[in-house]
């Protein structure tokens, strides 16, 4: 999916409209901080009208009330914008499907053409070549090549087939070849995309526990500041000073954590948006945040850490055998080997021998011995030479039968390859063993780097593999995996997740198979591959549309970003208050106690300009920070302490100092424009 710019015209327009619609107190109710700003703005506005009607000067009140209203509108705009972007993303996924026609199999076996939107769970539909799959489902019959680019943006088509772990299909994708019978697993309004849309819609969104805890802090702070403001006129009355309502209102709104209060909903929604743009559908906000906490990750070896197949990386000749001869024999013996391993030997040999694909000609009168699971070797009989390549014990048997034996060097090579996590294959020519092929699990590109990033985050990676412990240990060491579970069976995953959780860890796991479902459900963060089975997807709390297991890193990152952004903006918001006090308090008492002018360290021009500047700063800081809230604070792997110090420095100290400078600047502009 193309990266969208932050503000596209259409979305911004909708969001601007939305920010007015949201002035409705019923919807503001969800954001108590903003509700109070709303009430305060109303009071100031009413007072302003009263002054206007009674013929008094009201210019100052007018300006303050305008900026107070903007404070609410800006906050609404932030939320509406985040929602709009998420919606746009989700809608683009959905449009493909809305006009789709489905061929539904009725109970009597007849086929009826219906609109995709009328499909219910457990309906069976038939999708033929070139048609669009009408809704999420499981393949019950058939195999097909499917173009999922509409959803994943990945142009290479994928194979999906019934049975097994790759039977899931998503609504909106297109069948390129083949014919499928699909059992619909999600009715109208229940598909993952529908789910996603509800996650980004503010009104329906469930707040996460962490968000609620933060909101409690904000409400508590707001109550304290409300008290500060309400008691202040009583105190000042003791000194014979009256404080006008408009000034108290300004003080209150400036002190309240409006910055974080206004941006809080947007931060959560934007997190979902970002996940969606990485093609991950989160089924609960809670899971996204939990993913930031994960400290143990269970990874399947195959497909996650290693490429699916083993590849030949070197050929070791036994004494006295010419290396080129060995390559030639290996090449010949693999011609009839259609397995990925065989093909990798072919390509390695070709590369070493310097020949191109079309130069290969099968020798005339040759008999091929294809690779089968039974004989576990492949080869060729040509010009009386029996060239074979295969598993150690299979070749051993074969050369024995021809009166040969395994030379010592070959044995040593075989042992050392196995010890290093590779799979040895032996090449023989007649009764003579001529060399050993080293087949290795090829680590995915960058996996070492990504795992070391995980480690920096304090996340322990655990590899799960069916391999024997020796092989597993070697691969783990090479990839930089912290721990591994070898010879794992399906139930091993569930048991090890439980074990980790008892020790207080939060565990994430990625799975696709039906037998992964219990483990996915048990894990704190369970990510199902979109290509996986329906049961896996139901048990998980996130679905990765790309079926790319290393996506977990992105998910963890997004979870952390949401929290960091919240924490940083809270710190920023609270630190801001110091400067506002230094602006407003001397302004309030300027007439009565000129001594307090010493607090006016910004040397703001007049009491009114000081207050107006503070209110303006307080309002415009919200839209200024919208990009930060939507993109999330950039996240680099570093130690927790360092990250905290950096963030305290940037958002704490920055939040302390920035308003001093900004309010001073605004004050100069306000004075220059003659606004007060």
């Amino acid at each position, binding site marked *: 999916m193309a990266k969208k710019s932050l503000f596209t015209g259409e979305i911004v327009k909708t969001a601007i409209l939305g920010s007015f619609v949201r002035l409705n107190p019923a919807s503001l109710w969800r954001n108590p901080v903003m509700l109070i700003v709303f009430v305060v703005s109303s009071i100031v506005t009413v007072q302003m009208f009263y002054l206007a009607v009674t013929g008094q000067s009201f210019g100052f009140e007018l300006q303050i009330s305008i900026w107070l209203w903007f404070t609410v509108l800006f906050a609404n705009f932030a939320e509406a914008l985040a929602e709009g972007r998420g919606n746009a993303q989700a809608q683009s996924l959905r449009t493909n499907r809305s006009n789709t026609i489905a061929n539904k199999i009725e109970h009597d076996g007849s086929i009826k053409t219906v609109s995709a939107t009328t499909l219910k769970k457990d309906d069976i539909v038939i999708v033929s070549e070139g048609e669009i799959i009408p809704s999420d489902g499981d393949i019950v019959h058939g195999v097909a090549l499917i173009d999922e680019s509409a959803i994943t943006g990945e142009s290479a088509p994928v194979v999906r087939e019934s049975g097994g772990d790759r039977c899931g299909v998503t609504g909106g994708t297109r069948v390129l070849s083949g014919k499928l019978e699909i059992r619909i697993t999600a009715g109208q309004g229940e598909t993952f995309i529908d789910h996603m849309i509800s996650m980004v819609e503010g009104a329906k969104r469930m707040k996460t*526990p*962490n968000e*609620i*805890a*933060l909101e*409690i*802090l904000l409400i*508590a702070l707001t*109550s*304290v500041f409300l*008290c*500060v403001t*309400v*008691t202040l006129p*009583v*105190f*000042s*009355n*003791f*000194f014979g000073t009256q404080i006008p309502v408009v000034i108290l209102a300004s003080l209150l709104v400036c*002190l309240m954590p409006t910055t974080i209060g206004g941006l809080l909903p947007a931060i959560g929604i934007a997190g979902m948006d970002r996940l969606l743009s990485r093609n991950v559908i989160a089924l609960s906000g809670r899971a996204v*945040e*939990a993913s*930031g*906490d994960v*400290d143990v990750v269970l990874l399947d070896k195959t497909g996650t850490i290693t490429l699916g197949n083993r590849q030949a990386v070197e050929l070791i000749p036994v004494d006295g055998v010419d290396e080129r001869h060995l390559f030639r024999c290996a090449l010949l013996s693999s011609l009839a080997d259609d397995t990925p391993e065989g093909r990798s030997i072919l390509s390695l040999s070709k590369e070493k021998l310097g020949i191109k694909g079309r130069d290969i000609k099968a020798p005339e009168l040759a008999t091929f011995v294809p690779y089968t699971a039974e004989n576990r070797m492949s080869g060729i009989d040509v010009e009386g030479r029996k060239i074979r390549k295969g598993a150690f014990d299979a070749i051993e048997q074969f050369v024995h039968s021809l009166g040969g034996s395994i030379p010592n060097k070959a044995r040593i090579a075989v042992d050392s390859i196995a010890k290093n996590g590779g799979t040895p294959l032996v090449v023989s020519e007649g009764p003579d063993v001529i060399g050993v092929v080293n087949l290795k699990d090829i680590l995915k590109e960058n996996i070492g780097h990504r795992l070391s990033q995980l480690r920096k*985050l*304090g996340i322990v990676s655990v590899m799960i593999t069916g391999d024997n412990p020796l092989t597993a240990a070697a691969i783990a060491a090479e990839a930089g995996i912290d721990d591994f579970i070898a010879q794992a069976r399906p139930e091993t995953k569930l048991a090890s997740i439980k074990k980790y959780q*008892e020790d*207080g*860890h939060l565990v994430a796991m990625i799975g696709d198979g039906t037998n992964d479902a219990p483990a996915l459900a048990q894990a704190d963060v369970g990510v199902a591959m979109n290509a996986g089975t329906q049961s896996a997807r139901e048990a998980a709390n996130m679905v990765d549309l790309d079926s790319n297991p290393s996506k977990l890193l992105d998910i963890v990152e997004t*979870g*952390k*970003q949401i*929290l*960091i952004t*919240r*924490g*940083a903006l*809270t*710190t920023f918001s*609270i630190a801001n*208050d*110091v400067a506002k*006090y230094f602006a407003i*308090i001397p302004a309030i*008492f300027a007439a009565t*106690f000129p*001594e*307090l002018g*010493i607090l006016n360290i910004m040397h703001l021009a007049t009491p009114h300009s000081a207050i107006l500047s503070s209110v303006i700063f307080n309002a415009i800081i919200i839209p200024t920070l919208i990009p930060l809230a939507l993109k999330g604070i950039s996240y680099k792997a570093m*130690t*927790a*302490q360092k*990250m*905290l*110090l950096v*963030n*305290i420095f940037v*958002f704490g100290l920055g939040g302390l100092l920035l308003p001093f400078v900004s309010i001073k600047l605004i004050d100069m502009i306000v004075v220059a424009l003659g606004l007060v």
Partner: protein
Amino acid sequence: MIAGELMVVALIIFATIACAYPFGIYMAKVFGGEKTFMSKVMRPVENFFYKFAGIKENDKQNWKQYLKSFVLFFGLGFVILFAILSVQKWLPMNPSGFGNIRWDTGLNIATSFCTNTNWQSVSFEASLTPFSQMIGIAVQNFVSAAAGLAVGVALVRGFARKNTDKIGNFWVDLTRGVLYVLVPISLVVAIFLVWQGVPQTLGNTIQATTIQGQSQTIITGPVASQVSIKMLGSNGGGYFNANGAHPFENPTPLSNAIQTMAILFIPMSLLFTFGKMIGDMKKAWSLFFVCIFLFVIGLSITMYAEMSPNPVLRNAGVASGLNMEGKEMRFGIPSSALWGQSTTVVSNGSVNGMHDSFMPLSGLVYIFNMITGEVIFGGVGVGLASLLLYSILAMFIAGLMIGKTPELLRKKLGVNEMVWACVGLLTPCIVVLILTAIGFVTPSALSSLSAKGSHGFSQLLYANTSMVGNNGSAFGGLAANTPFFNLTGSFAMLFGRFATVVSAIAVAGSLAKKNQSPANSTQIPMTSPAFVVMLLAVIIIVGALTFFPSLAIGPLLEHLKMAGM
């Protein structure tokens, strides 16, 4: 001379630390039910109490039961003390023939001593009989402190335990707090004070003939025992109204030194108890650093303020500008400033000088010490509890900033912890502001003020922060024995006490239920400088943001006016 006095101040602080460390570890053993060197003596007494009261030592309580026991015990103590005060005229040991205490005053005193505040709205030596002082007041001096200890210990248990709803047994903690902690050390301190010349007698008065030949009634009584526990238990209510400035309570520089140590002793020790209980002394040192840092900053400001020439005196042509007003000559400025700083940070409330006469900046520091919720070492037990609640607040924001669900001492912080931390720390601030505002619109309250303008404002603000903070020290100059102050004060003290206690126990329950995160988890450890900075910032910012306007128009304005700026 001043340099020498400063040395004394430093010496007192270091001596306190040196004693607090081993004592903190001893307390951890006591509350953990381990054997100590006191067990031989106290174990039989302890067992007798359990048998007598029908307490099963091993019956652990969940937080609601623990809280219920706390409230029950508080209620009982309150009723008894209130009853004694109301009928003291007819009770034994009334040599001076004092009358019964008026109901609103009695209510205030009973609340005050049961909440470990020890705000004294009347002069005790002139209105309370020795019976009331010994059976009523002194008992609460012990048990209200021990109840506070129990609360602090319970909260630490919440952190130290996992997957349980039990946080200990209140009655056992209370008994151990009295028997193993308060009784032994107050005995030691009392004997020391008697040696220094503090009276300890059941006779109430001495008739003396002055050199002018006039007759004078000198009030004495069981002073030493009362004084030692009032210092140790963060009580602060003196036998005499003049408190630590009275020559019978505090006759010598040595008695002054030992009493200052006694103020800080248990609250400081508790930090090490905390370290021992959670099994990591480094964390105790990091909390200690936060406390001592704020302590020394405050102390430096007050010392600076008190030692600077008083502009008013200077302008009046007085040669020495040192602000000796309201201070005892025998203690001098540094020791008076140290006491003032100690007594306000520790919610003790005893005084050895008149805070009303201290410089405005000192007043500002003292009010600040109290509004932060008495966390700079803080009251016995509850100070530690408040400090941990602040840590929760600080760690919540810090934890977010590293992208994890916030965790403190391997416990995840959730909605529950947040609610109670806010209740425990922020609602008292709200109550201080509201009560102060109510005072300013109540004519009878205004007539109690002895000054106008900023100083009058500070008097009322100080009184309310002192009562809500369960400190009990008086700024002076406020005529507090009026129905208005007695009643609002009772409310303030109750609220301040229970906001902390309920929050601490509720958080303890909530934390104990949680599993512990793995020890090697990548969180901000309490020992990291980043956390220390964060905690300091949160404590200062919460106090400063809430009271910026009040402090500005109160002590700060007075200071500015005095300096002629």
